[in-house]
């Protein structure tokens, strides 16, 4: 009778259950890890968005400051300040100018600006000889 009862009982396959449990655990861990990674990804994405935004704000601020500098150093602004007496032009005579490069005579070579000269001063202004003397 005893032997019959034992035969009627379903045998539990421990190794199969254990394998399933391990697999389930691994799958669960993988899923949790996936969720963790996804969260991290979102967090990093959010951080990069904030950094992008910050960079953008700095860029905009920089542009605004550049525009302000341009406006405050523009000819119109400086002329106005000159007229109002906030800045003052000091004339420099040719004899007080040390030329690094000799001025170029009338040639179609673009724009030249080494120094200003007083007209009719009678000196050989900026001529090669003068440069050599210096």
């Amino acid at each position, binding site marked *: 009778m005893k032997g019959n009862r034992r035969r009627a009982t379903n045998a539990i396959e421990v190794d199969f259950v254990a394998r399933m449990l391990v697999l389930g655990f691994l799958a669960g861990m993988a899923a949790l890890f996936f969720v963790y990674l996804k969260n991290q*990804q*979102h967090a990093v*994405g*959010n951080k*990069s*968005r904030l950094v992008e935004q910050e960079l953008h*704000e700095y860029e*905009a*601020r920089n*542009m*605004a400051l*550049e*525009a302000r500098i*341009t*406006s405050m150093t*523009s*000819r*119109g*602004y400086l*002329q106005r300040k000159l007229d109002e007496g906030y800045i003052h032009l000091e004339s420099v005579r040719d004899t007080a100018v040390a030329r690094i490069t000799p*001025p*170029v*005579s*009338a*040639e*179609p070579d*673009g*724009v*030249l*600006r*080494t*120094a*200003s*000269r*007083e*007209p*009719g001063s009678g*000196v*050989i*202004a*900026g*001529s*090669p*000889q003068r440069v050599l003397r210096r």
Partner: protein
Amino acid sequence: MKGTTGRIGVVCALLVLVFTTFAWRLIHLQILQYDYFSKLAAQKHLRCQPIPAKRGRILDRNGEELAVNIPVRTVTADGTHIKDPAALAAVAAPFLEMPVEELAGKLSPAVKGKRPYVVIKKEVAEEKAQAMIAAMEKARLRGLYLEEGSVRSYPNGEMLCHVLGFVDHSGHGIDGIEKSFDSELRGQDGFRWIEHDRKGLEIVTYRGQEQLPENGSDIRLTIDMGLQAIVEKEVDAAFRDLHPAGAAAILVDPQTGEILAMANRPNFDPNKFNEAKPEEMRNRIITDMYEPGSVFKIVVASAALNEGIVSDRTRIFCENGLFSYGGKTVKDHHKAGDMSLAEILQYSSNIGSAKMSLMMKDQKYYDYVRAFGFGEKTGIPLQGEISGLVNPPRRWDMLTKTRMAFGQSVSVTPIQMIMAMSSVGNAGKLMKPRLVLSRGEGSTPSETEAPRQIVREETSKFIANALQKVVSKEGTAPLAAIDGFTVAGKTGTAQKVGPHGGYLNDRYIVSFAGFFPAEHPRLTGLVIVDDAKIGAAANYGGLVAAPIFAHIGGRAARYLDIQQENAVAQANASSNQASNR
């Protein structure tokens, strides 16, 4: 037993039915209506975020900024995010420079109507907008958001306004270089598909397709702001002292055709273009035509000399100052008998010029006028250029030819006139005016277009020498002389044409066009003063426009450091002596 099996069968059938229904519903949602629902989801969470391109700057030839962008923000409100409009208004109003009540008045309807997008204020400065957001975060308030934008700024204000033009509120070029090169300056906006959360914040992980903006190219002009400032100051002084209807001046490099400075009065501030009057916005140098008067004598003189009809030894009888032709009398200010070609130009003889024109065939004379560029647009890249008015010979009456010789019965634009004068200083080669040096960073300067050879080099040299005498004590424009330089030029004094035809009494357009140093010209200049209020006795090109030219030329020469001709001569003599030794 049979009953039990039957019940189990029914339950199973019901379960199968239920699961089949669910399965069908899933198929319906996921497969059959996939497009519809994915579109619906996308509408809720997907958005195409525009990335605006930056408009290119406009620079002068030395890189000085003439038109720049200032970043600004548009402040918008989302009524669904605002819980306490009064508190939000109290925090934000000082940054938006508006009364608290006014802001609260804008916010309350948005909250009540649950409107998600209400524009509160445009063009808020970047710093103020950022400070407002910081203050809101500190007060734990939300509901106001910022949108990107920029406004165009012209740091020099009115200076060079007619060349630069301006843009409208949507950033499209309306006038000047801003209009002519709008597509290049504007660039191409980019975009980015983003997915956002419930709060409207981007979920970066799901960032979609993206196209970066292509910023607009910088445009580098041939204008030199140093010279422009000189010209502006002189034209300003003339406009203030002489009270004319208009005044204009232009400087050109005769060898390349590059426009170095261009100024008109009246003018306007492109930063406040909506306050400008139409007459202030007109670039008279290209949009207005006028009878040039005696400056035009260079055309008939060049043509007659080039065709061999006259020579340097030819003497023309100038009728002692009174010449009747075609029932009308032509008068000379300087009464003389015989005059050479050089003297005709020096004393600005109308009779001599008229007689020279009569020596030429109509068509040939007309061809020369057209060859000098009159009657056609110069092709300067600015809006509104006109071609002037030169009638063909078939429309001439008996007097037209003689009148044209001294600048009547023909209408030209100032830009045509200065390019024609430049050709005299450029060995008879007519250049196309250039206003743009290069487009875009790193681009090479555009090539100068092949010039048109109008007259032989010897002819233009002869005319240039004759024009030097105009700026002598005996000539009509001694006041155009520039210390240290020889100047060649010609005065023009033309009666104004009335709106209903005929000439207006005592109202003149006076001008002076010239170049220097006469031997190797570096600069050509033209000054025009329209209807100066100084009395007819003093209203002459030689008395009004010539001194302005001299002031501009003198300062420009010093600015460019053009070596004075006596200095050049002395330097050459010294070097010759040194080499002989």
